[in-house]
């Protein structure tokens, strides 16, 4: 394989505190500090002028729907979306059909990844058998089979006792637990944020308190067990404050925020359009500001997309009946840059850090850096380019995006995995 020479890009590598115009070199699938004069002559040159070169983005929260829901997405198409969005490592959730709560399913997923994926896709396993919240899944065997975390994502474990035991047990294997924080008893029939907008629209509200309670529960269980609990897609203002205080006490919890919770509010639901329906729901501007504050001071560790494909015919229904979730991978970078960098004046390197080094570090993944010797996973993007996102023309099998038809700023031009170009700005190199 020829060496790569990315020339004259603004290289942002938070792991090495690097942010300056320069070159990136790749040889034998790895990042190298330099190339010999002879290798330079033979190298494939990518002109990085005007572009940012950063580590390939890392998303630890995606739904690729395989096995069992492949009409919505597959590991192949999901990985294409990732490549097109600049992501080189993604972690997929276990709520497939069947759920990934046994080693056979994990092995199947790994086989499909090996065969079909164009980026690095890592599986998670369930906390409880079939995510029913009744008995523990074979967590040790799942760990041995190679899951990077366990989670009942979407079906938050309601029993505090069971969650306590899961924490204690998973701790043996140093396996993080990822939790979608939702007290189900408070959200029966709920389809959007509880507040002024839900009151006017007559839709059943999902109160912030239902998230806050489980966030607090998890901080308490992590304190006692010492297990690492990662709090998924935080949406509530008070939850941010609870996390801040727990972290100040040294509790081993981490948290993520999604681009859609940063960019959109419950007011988007005025027209009952299910493309704004997700769980946790879009909340208020006040919650948004708290989450942005949490990202600023490190209370919230990372950005994750919760990429959740659903077909048109599933999404196109009465708001109450439509499934939760939206696409995220192809729009994550421009949307996050818009909110954090352009509107809230985060440094560009800080935004990149939230989408590369920090999520990799959070799960201990070998990703998110341009250090010499690291896998050559690289994202090149133009932070200025404006483009209109057409979800149907995108790489997902589904098109359920609130940004469909919207103009976005910041566009991925090249995505490189292990030194190979998997996305060239137009096409994904399919397998």
């Amino acid at each position, binding site marked *: 394989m020829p060496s790569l020479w990315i020339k004259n890009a603004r290289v942002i590598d938070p792991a090495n505190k690097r942010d300056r115009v320069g070159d990136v070199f790749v040889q034998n699938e790895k990042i190298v500090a330099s190339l010999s004069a002879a290798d330079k002559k033979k190298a494939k040159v990518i002109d990085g002028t005007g572009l940012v070169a950063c580590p390939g983005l890392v998303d630890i929260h995606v739904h690729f729907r395989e096995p069992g829901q492949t009409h919505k997405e597959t590991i192949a198409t999901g990985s294409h979306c990732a490549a097109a969005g600049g992501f080189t490592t993604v972690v997929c959730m276990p709520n497939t059909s069947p759920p990934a709560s046994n080693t056979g399913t994990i092995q199947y997923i790994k086989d499909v990844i090996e065969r079909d994926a164009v980026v690095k896709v890592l599986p998670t396993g369930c906390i409880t058998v079939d995510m029913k919240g009744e008995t523990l899944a074979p967590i040790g065997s799942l760990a041995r089979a190679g899951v990077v975390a366990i989670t009942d994502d979407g079906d938050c474990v309601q029993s505090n006792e069971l969650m306590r035991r899961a924490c204690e047990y998973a701790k043996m294997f140093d396996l993080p637990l990822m939790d979608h924080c939702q007290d189900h008893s408070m959200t*029966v029939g709920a389809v959007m944020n509880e*507040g*002024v907008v*839900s*009151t*006017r*629209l*007559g*839709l*059943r509200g999902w109160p912030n308190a239902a998230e806050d309670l489980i966030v607090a529960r998890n901080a308490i269980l992590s304190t006692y067990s010492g297990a690492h609990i990662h709090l998924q897609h935080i949406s509530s203002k008070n939850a941010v404050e609870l996390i801040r205080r727990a972290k100040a006490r040294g509790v081993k919890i981490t948290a993520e925020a999604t681009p859609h919770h940063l960019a959109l509010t419950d007011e988007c639901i005025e*027209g*009952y359009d299910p493309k704004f329906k997700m769980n946790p729901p879009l909340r208020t501007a006040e919650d948004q500001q708290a989450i942005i504050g949490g990202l600023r001071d490190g209370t919230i560790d990372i950005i994750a997309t919760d990429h959740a494909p659903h077909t048109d*015919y599933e999404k*196109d*229904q*009465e*708001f*109450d*009946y439509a499934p939760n979730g939206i696409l995220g991978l192809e729009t994550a970078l421009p949307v996050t840059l818009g909110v954090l960098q352009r509107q809230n004046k985060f440094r560009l390197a800080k935004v990149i850090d939230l989408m590369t080094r920090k999520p990799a570090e959070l799960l201990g993944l070998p990703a998110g850096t341009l250090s010499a010797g690291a896998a050559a996973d690289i994202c090149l993007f133009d932070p200025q380019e404006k483009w209109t996102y057409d979800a149907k023309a995108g790489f997902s099998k589904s098109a359920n995006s609130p940004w469909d038809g919207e103009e976005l700023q910041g566009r991925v031009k090249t995505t490189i995995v292990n030194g190979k170009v998997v996305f060239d700005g137009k096409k994904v190199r399919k397998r």
Partner: protein
Amino acid sequence: MPWNRRHLITLEELSRAELDQIHSTATGFKKILTRSVKKVPALRGKTIVNLFLEPSTRTRMAFDMAAKRLSADVISLDAKSSSTTKGESLRDTAQNIAALQADMIVIRHSAPGAPLYLSRLLNIPVINAGDGAHEHPTQGLLDTFTMRERLGELDGRRVVILGDILFSRVARSNIQALRTLGADVTVVGPSTLVPPYFEALGVRVSHDLRSALADAEVVMLLRIQHERQNSGMFPSIGEYTSMFGLNQERASWLHPDAIIMHPGPINRGVEIDSELADGDRSVILEQVTNGIAVRMAVLYLCAGGQPEYVTPTA
């Protein structure tokens, strides 16, 4: 000003002039209801489909009656007879109805926003006959019509809505129309069923019956549903009645000329004393009669009729 709306989805979006047009048209149609021949040919040759995907008796009867008084052909589908029980989507059901060349759809649905969704799919007028806890526009129209008949203009008039506000589409439609007509609205009931978010709709939120009812000219009661008790919204029907039921003593706090309203069906002895429901101040049955006239006006206008052809003096 000509009427140029084809759908009736919410009262939130109607202007004062539009509310006036519907009410004046209804006044004209109301006269027909007391004639010996209670029928006009306004919608002859038109087919109206009543798509009731949630149980209803009086609203459905009133729409049925209104359509027949206008000489329209009416087909009624309910949840049991429609294909939705076979898993057909609302989109497909609606497109089939449109393909049958229906001229108008009246829809009742448990999901808020379903009529709006339907109106975006179809080229024929869609009338909302109640969508979940969102709106029940024709109820709000008939209630405000009844108030205006009794009290005249509503600017600055004190109206109290009492009961389960949170889950009530009747409350929401009335709030929207009453605010547009300039009334001074208070919603009152237990704090679980009357959350503070309602203040954003421009009404006063109260949990104190005495101060809320003092000098009010209209009190509108809402039906209390037993299932709310099971979901912990209040301790018991008995406690509700003792705290918030309208009885003779509490009715004496009202303005001397106040009227008592209820969209029905009433729970005698729960939200309202039986004698009050049948008493002089009750306009509950007038509401039912007015419901036909108002729905005739809505069907007529949304089918393309113009208010000037149905003047109150006609």
